[in-house]
């Protein structure tokens, strides 16, 4: 379950390499001794139970938190990111799980926040056009880009956050549950997008609880459990293997539910018309 021998050749050079990353918040150790490698042109899926430490890891890579211990190597050089802008400057774009949008600003302002066109005389028209292009690419259903984020639906916000990350030309994209609030069409577009991005040679780390989506786009699936590495899998792994590694038990609520449903369906085959 925990064998890490590479069965596939990585697509390109090593982009990111973590060794022994730990992070504790007061009395809670959120991450303990995490190792992770990501190559160019590779999509690594990070999966794990709730509270496994996935978002914490992403935040460390995005410069939001500083690790308590461990080293980060980015494109061959060891780096310390004291600040999100340091990560952005290195070429790491992030879609956070909590989105991190400014509710008082409108959609265009949020997409371009921190990298506005013409800083001394904002080019609103150009920014608006580019926003529409990005959003349409993602099949977004946003009535107007001139309303504050506060009045958008959950999925619309998530689309805006994803659109934000596409503005840059990053080396590494971190996507923390990018499709959690998205509709079926938007989810499909994001998966397409991930594939396109991979084909352009970028490295992608994606977090998701949807095993189907994960298997659909990931080249490698890294499992975290209670803040520790708990195995590496490949898309051909069965659902049961993955869920077992995530929950830490072969007999878990998912399998139990499956079994019960099977039994129940057979019983009620004629019961409910």
């Amino acid at each position, binding site marked *: 379950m925990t064998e890490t021998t590479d069965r596939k050749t990585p697509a390109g050079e090593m982009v990111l390499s973590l060794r022994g990353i730990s992070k504790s918040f007061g009395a809670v150790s959120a991450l303990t001794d995490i190792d992770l490698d990501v190559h160019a042109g590779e999509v690594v899926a990070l999966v794990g139970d709730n509270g496994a430490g996935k978002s914490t890891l992403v935040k460390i890579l995005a410069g939001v938190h500083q690790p308590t211990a461990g080293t980060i190597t980015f494109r061959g050089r060891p780096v310390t990111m004291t600040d999100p*802008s340091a990560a952005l400057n290195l070429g790491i774009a992030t879609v956070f799980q909590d989105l*991190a949008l400014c509710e008082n600003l409108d959609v265009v302002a949020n997409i371009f926040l921190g990298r*506005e066109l013409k800083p001394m*005389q904002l080019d609103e*028209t150009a920014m608006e056009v580019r926003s*529409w292009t990005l959003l349409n690419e993602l099949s977004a*259903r946003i009535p107007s880009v001139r309303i504050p984020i506060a009045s958008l639906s959950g999925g619309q916000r998530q689309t805006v956050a994803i659109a934000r990350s596409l503005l840059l030309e990053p080396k590494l994209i971190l996507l923390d549950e990018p499709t959690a609030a998205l509709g079926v069409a938007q989810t499909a577009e994001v998966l397409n997008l991930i594939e396109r991005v991979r084909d352009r040679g970028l490295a992608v780390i994606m977090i998701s609880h949807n095993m189907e989506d994960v298997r659909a786009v990931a080249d490698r699936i890294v499992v975290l459990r209670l803040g520790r590495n708990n195995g590496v899998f490949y898309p051909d792994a069965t659902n049961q293997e993955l869920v077992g590694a995530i929950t830490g038990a072969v007999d878990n609520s998912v399998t139990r539910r499956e079994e019960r449903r099977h039994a129940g369906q057979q019983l009620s085959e004629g019961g409910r018309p």
Partner: protein
Amino acid sequence: MTGNVKDNALPATMLDRSDERLKHEAGIGGAVRGFIDRVRSGDLGSLPVVVGLALIWTVFASLNPIFLSSNNLVNLLFDCSTVGVIALGIVCVLMVGEIDLSVGSISGFASAIVGTLWVNQGWPVALAILAAVAVGGLIGSLYALLYNRLGMPSFVATLSGLLAVLGMQLYILGSTGSINLPYGSAMVNFGQMLVMPRLLAHVLAVVPGVVMLWTGVRTISRRREANLSAPSLGSIVLRAAATTLVLEIIVLYLNQDRGIPWMFGLFVGLVMLMNYALTRTQWGRSMTAVGGNREAARRAGINVRRIYASAFVLCSMLAALGGVLSASRLASASQQAGTGDVNLNAIAAAVIGGTSLFGGRGNAYSALLGIIVIQSIANGLTLLDLSSSLRYMITGGVLAIAVIVDSLARRSRVSHGRA
């Protein structure tokens, strides 16, 4: 969802008009209907405060017609300018969700600096003013340091500053108490009587309309090009014309007496500059973002510390400038300058004008509007013979009334889901 979109110029093909749930109107009629819609949903910007102001003016004018005499209104403009400049600085710190309680002290300290350097030490007046404003900036950077490096809440840092700076003001005025600024000097003239030449005032009153027209036309053509919906030319011409008309009437009326004070011109100029900076530059965008969600701004790569520092420094510098202006208005630098209700008036002006105490919402015009409300009340009451107890009660009541209109409008906005 037909395919032939290229061959007709239906608005529905525009990038931002593709959503069928969005109601929209075109042309002048549309603009008017849109306005009525906004009135009904309570989304009115500063209109409610203007209505409150109109109410106040009507009442005061009916109590004493002199209130509306152009002479009195010119006085009002002079009085607005000093605290108004301070309120403009307050808008900056409120935008990022912080506060500066020491603007009164800083303004007093600045006036004391100008007084000592210019009158007592014989520096050139310009240099003395520059020094005062620079000292203001220095105090602001100290606050920024305390805030950014030590994480001290600005309320406490500037409260300490309020006391410490007041102490410095008393200290440098210690031996003399107050210093007379020479009547007849350019600086005192500027604060007391200098008004714009009549013609110039009329010309300047046309400028906003022209700028509106010019940017409007440019926006229309750029948006049309980019296949975005654009306001109709008619509605822009209408708005520009209305603005120009109103301004020209005001100028004409005030020119009957002394005319538009240069000091007020300076204040309005600063307001417009600040408005530009807040709405049309990256810095202003960052200010709004930091005030709305500090963490989101940080994650977007904005140098949050620099933004806070700019807000504090700007606020203190404007406070110092305001102090210099009030010294020139009073022709004196005294130990009492900047004490009393200068702080509260400056903060209240910003808040009444519509800038939120909690950050991320506000605009430069709120300083202008708010201070006019406050000074109108003060000015209107000077024209009535009232005991000071009544004066306090009425000031409180009228202040509340001026804001009730705005509050009601905001409530309606909330109930229409636009809070």
